[in-house]
């Protein structure tokens, strides 16, 4: 048993930390957020130059042959620094889908950061089930024509290429340019400043990825990888919330003493600390199992993490705002940004109810 990050992983974190500390502080995030900017080329290019895109990708496509624990260490830092770049959409979801569907050559563009993809799997009124697909594909010569609606697709507001699921003798995956005819993108920032879009497909021409009707397992595996990555993202966020709230309890004075000296607050903070260790444990397990060939083990580990991290981070957010009082409600104080970050992580790639149900039935 070994619960440590490797030396390489620790070095990666250090260089990422250093670079972000230099160029991307909370005020940078806040300025971007208030201007509705979800993707900044200089931040994206910096991530590519640091090698964090290439790190978890296979050597054959220009990567460093890393694993999902590499993804975990990167995403933890991205969450900690509130980085809104579409890292997970590309390095985690798109890279896996393209590679698995025999399009490894396209992954090279992800490793270098040159091409940005978004992966649209969810639809309106289907809750969190990625296999409930109403979008249709029909064959038209060498191409396929897509009609349907993909909901809240992470990174689709700034992607050049879209990967979407559609029904063609079962779940299938397709690739098409974001500016293709018949594609309408309704772009928006999410609560936490990351970008997304609804994708409306009306007779849009696309290329089939892999085998028609055989994509269900790939979709589920992609979602699990994304879910594990977002759990790691929430660990980074919650570590900042923990630090902010602890510091506030130590320094804020009322009734002539630090408010943390009141047991009614200090014991609640301890409960959050216990929750933190628990959520970190399952997030680590999800990272280790996210790429497992044992599908049942993967599903159990990822669902357990999504449930525990989701519930605990929600509680962390609520309790931290309460213990801060008024200042916790303001936009200028970082706490709120983390609360929103964790909320978005909680709801994407299956919410707590979805994963609790899947855990119970796997």
């Amino acid at each position: 048993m070994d619960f440590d990050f490797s030396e390489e992983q620790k070095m990666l974190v250090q260089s990422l930390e250093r670079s972000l500390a230099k160029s991307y502080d909370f005020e940078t995030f806040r300025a971007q957020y208030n201007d509705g900017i979800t993707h900044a080329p200089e931040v994206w290019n910096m991530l590519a130059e640091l090698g964090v895109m290439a790190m978890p990708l296979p050597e054959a496509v220009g990567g460093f042959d890393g694993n999902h624990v590499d993804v975990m260490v990167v995403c933890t830092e991205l969450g900690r620094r509130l980085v809104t770049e579409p890292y997970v959409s590309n390095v985690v979801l798109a890279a896996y889908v393209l590679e698995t569907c025999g399009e490894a050559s396209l992954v090279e563009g992800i490793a270098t950061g040159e091409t940005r993809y978004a992966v649209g799997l969810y639809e309106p009124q289907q809750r969190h089930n990625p296999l409930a697909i109403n979008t249709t594909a029909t064959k038209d010569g060498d191409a396929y024509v897509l009609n349907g609606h993909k909901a809240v697709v992470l990174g689709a507001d700034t992607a050049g290429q879209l990967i979407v699921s559609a029904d063609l003798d079962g779940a299938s995956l397709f690739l098409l340019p974001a500016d293709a005819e018949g594609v309408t993108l309704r772009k928006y920032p999410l609560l936490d400043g990351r970008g997304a879009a609804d994708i409306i497909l009306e007779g849009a021409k696309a290329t089939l990825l892999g085998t028609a009707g055989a994509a269900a397992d790939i979709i589920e595996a992609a979602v699990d990888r994304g879910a594990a990555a977002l759990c790691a993202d929430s660990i980074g966020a919650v570590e900042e919330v923990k630090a902010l709230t602890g510091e506030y309890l130590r320094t804020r004075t009322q009734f002539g003493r630090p408010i943390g000296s009141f047991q009614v607050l200090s014991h609640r903070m301890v409960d959050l600390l216990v929750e933190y260790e628990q959520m970190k444990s399952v997030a680590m397990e999800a990272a280790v199992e996210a790429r497992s060939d044992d599908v049942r083990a993967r599903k159990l580990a990822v669902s357990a993490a999504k449930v525990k991290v989701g519930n605990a981070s929600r509680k962390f957010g609520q309790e931290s705002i309460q213990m801060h009082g008024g200042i916790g409600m303001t936009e200028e104080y970082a706490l709120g940004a983390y609360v929103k970050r964790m909320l978005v992580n909680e709801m994407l790639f299956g919410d707590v109810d979805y994963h609790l149900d899947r855990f119970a039935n796997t």
Partner: protein
Amino acid sequence: MDFSLSAKQLEFRDSVRAFLADKLPDDVREVTKAKSHLSKEQYKRWHKILGDKGWSTPLWPLKHGGTGWSAVEYAIFDEECHAHGAPRVLPFSVSMLGPVLIAFGNDDLKERFLPGIQDGSDWWAQGFSEPGAGSDLASLKMTAIRDGDHYIVNGQKTWTTLGQHADWIFCLVRTDPNAPKKQMGISFILIRMDAPGVEVRPIITLDGAHEVNEVWFTDVKVPAGDLVGEENKGWDYAKFLLQNERIGIAGVGVSKNEINALRRIATAEIKNGKPLLEDPAFKMKLAEIEIELRALDITNKRMLVETERGTDPGPVSSMLKIRGSEVAQRIYELKMEASGLYALPFQPNAGQEGWNDELVGTMDTSRSAPVYLNTRKISIFGGSNEIQRTIISKMVLGL
């Protein structure tokens, strides 16, 4: 990062399994699996079997009869014991007194008492709590006044677990009532339970069990040589003793086994013509606690690996105690809920050796409510969860 057991650890696990399959007496296993009460003889017999194997005091230093197991190996042992229905060896002698004697006792005390702890021939009780000293343990009042070669002891201890079986009791007593701080006048002393002036009175708990006692001391003469370490240093020894309990405090082994028992009940109980285990509402409750236990299991293992490495994980034992007790209590609660109406017939002695009544319901359902009630204690004893929170808030959070 790697969550799997090494080849050496798997081999160790197999050796534990083989030992348990070979040596665990059937009657002891039956009572343990029923979550009923072992007799004194059953406790002692199992302790002796472990002692003969050299496994009764696994965490002691090698030269005093430890096994040299790593923290992870001990956790594997603990988990396998629970899975096989082996009872836990009571902590009072092995985990509490033994390490104190090894660290602070003189050679005479070690020679007299360590062998009897290892083979279980001496039954030890713990005398810490008093009626007026629970969470505020240092306010204890029982006195030991030096009189020549002896101390004269007067006072009362309470919540003395299985004190009715004990040959000896280790007590915190006040030897200097005038010390400037209440923690400073306390000593750690060993008292024979058959000494004149010692009286044990049972306390029956709400599950109907006689597990705890009051112990009264009236002018009890204790040889001065039975005081451990230095006079008035007892509080330091007590703190050492309580910190020593880290490994195993999360109760992961027992909780995993109780989840299996819960599944067993929910398979046998029928709702709407189908096993309760297939009921959507029940399934969600089960999944929630399974996820919580899964997280606890990993957190506990992370702590064990840290311990093996020699880094002190600090007050993480407080954290494991809080969450471990909460998880266990939730499982016992669900076992009772799952048992339905047959949680209600009250047969407090069911499953004990010599109990011959007709069982109402099954052993699982019959024991579910008494065990639920009994285990409300686990968030109270050994420093209540509120005391643990205060320790963490001071030591980790600096609040």
